[in-house]
């Protein structure tokens, strides 16, 4: 009985850890995509503003504004925000 419980705990731990690694890896990928979009999309219209220039809250409004003006998808908007927040 104890063996079964320990085995199940080990299996669950491995699943949890691999899921955490997958999420972290996905976040890194989103940040990398966001960095690429930030460097290429913003400068088409205006000088790029550095992530440090605005607070995270203020960036959320600005990115919604830019989602409309620049024709970004929701995912592209989130990726750019992820990059901005990770850059501070």
């Amino acid at each position, binding site marked *: 009985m104890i063996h079964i419980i320990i085995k199940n705990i080990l299996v669950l731990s491995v699943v949890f850890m691999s899921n955490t690694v997958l999420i972290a890896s996905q976040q890194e990928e989103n940040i990398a995509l966001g960095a*690429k979009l930030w460097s*290429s*999309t913003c*400068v*088409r*219209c*205006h*000088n*790029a*503003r*550095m992530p440090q*220039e*605005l*607070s995270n*809250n*203020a960036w*959320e*409004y*600005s990115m*919604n*504004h830019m*989602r*409309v*003006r*620049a*024709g*970004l*998808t*929701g*995912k*592209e908007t989130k990726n750019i925000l992820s990059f901005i927040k990770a850059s501070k």
Partner: protein
Amino acid sequence: MKWNYLLLSLLCMGYSLLNAEPLFNDRSIELSDKVGLQLSGYAALDYQTQQNEKSPFVGAVFAPILHAKYANIFQFEGELEITKDNRVGTNTIVEYAAGTFFINDYLGLQVGKFLSPVGQFVQNQHPSWINKLPDAPLGFGHDGAAPSSVLGLALRGGLAPIQNIRSNYTLFIANAPVYEKAPDGDIIINAEGRFTPSHGRGIIGGRYGINLFNSMEIGASLASGKITETINNGKLVFRDYKVVDFDLMYNINSFDIKAEYVKQTIGTNNQSTLDLNGGIWRAYYGQIAYQVDHLHIEPVIRYGEYRNPEINYSQLSLGCNYLFTSSIMAKLAYEFNHDKLNASPQSIGNSNTFLMQLAIGF
């Protein structure tokens, strides 16, 4: 003299903003987990002196923009444009006031008065801290060849990339523009979003933009519908109205390239008291700027033409900007103006202009 003091004071205030940036760092107010407000916008101080004009033009623009959001599903944005100058005085207009519902990843529904989705200058370049020169290209200002704003609704968003090529779209339905005589006597297309009776007639249009390279966008816009005109007895008459626009934005290796062509065509109406024949309002410009990063300077050159049934102007602009930060800059420019229908060197259309501007985006 008092204008000089005002200009000097505002320049000093602008310069002091350089050291006050942290004050603007968090300008949002979170009313709850989902609801909040944010203030942003831009401001500018202008000085222009033109040949054959007795006194220089001195003016200031303050354009606060309010954003209000509900979670990530709705955002309202409204811009007031408050101008004060030594020719018109004080003027305040609602540049836009519209809400967008983000329906899904690729679709937003925008409702209200919003900047015309036709082309890119009016919608994306007009704020003074974004525009590389102190004024708009010929024909791209208010009542020119390019529509300014519309009152209606739009479906817009980004499309899923195809083989890494991104693209975006806008489809809109809006109020009919107005064909009228301006206070200076010129016949204009008043393509502003406003509540004008039009008996259900309006315009439908859209823009498609494609990013062939990461930092390049090519756009094509079309709109079609009716334009209204009020004749002497107050009766409303209609004409056909069509808009075509092509635009380009490209940023590569510190070079910033922009170009746009717009044409508005007005049909005929034999009941008109303004002009029976209608006509074509056409403008285009091409602009190149280069940022010398380590010196913080940015030379700019722009050439543009604007033609309608009454005028035919061309303009070559040479400018140089000093960038204090990415959104605070001082601009100097000299414009060579040419009136193709009037050879007189005394005419306004042939008068060259020197321009200075301090622009701040916040």
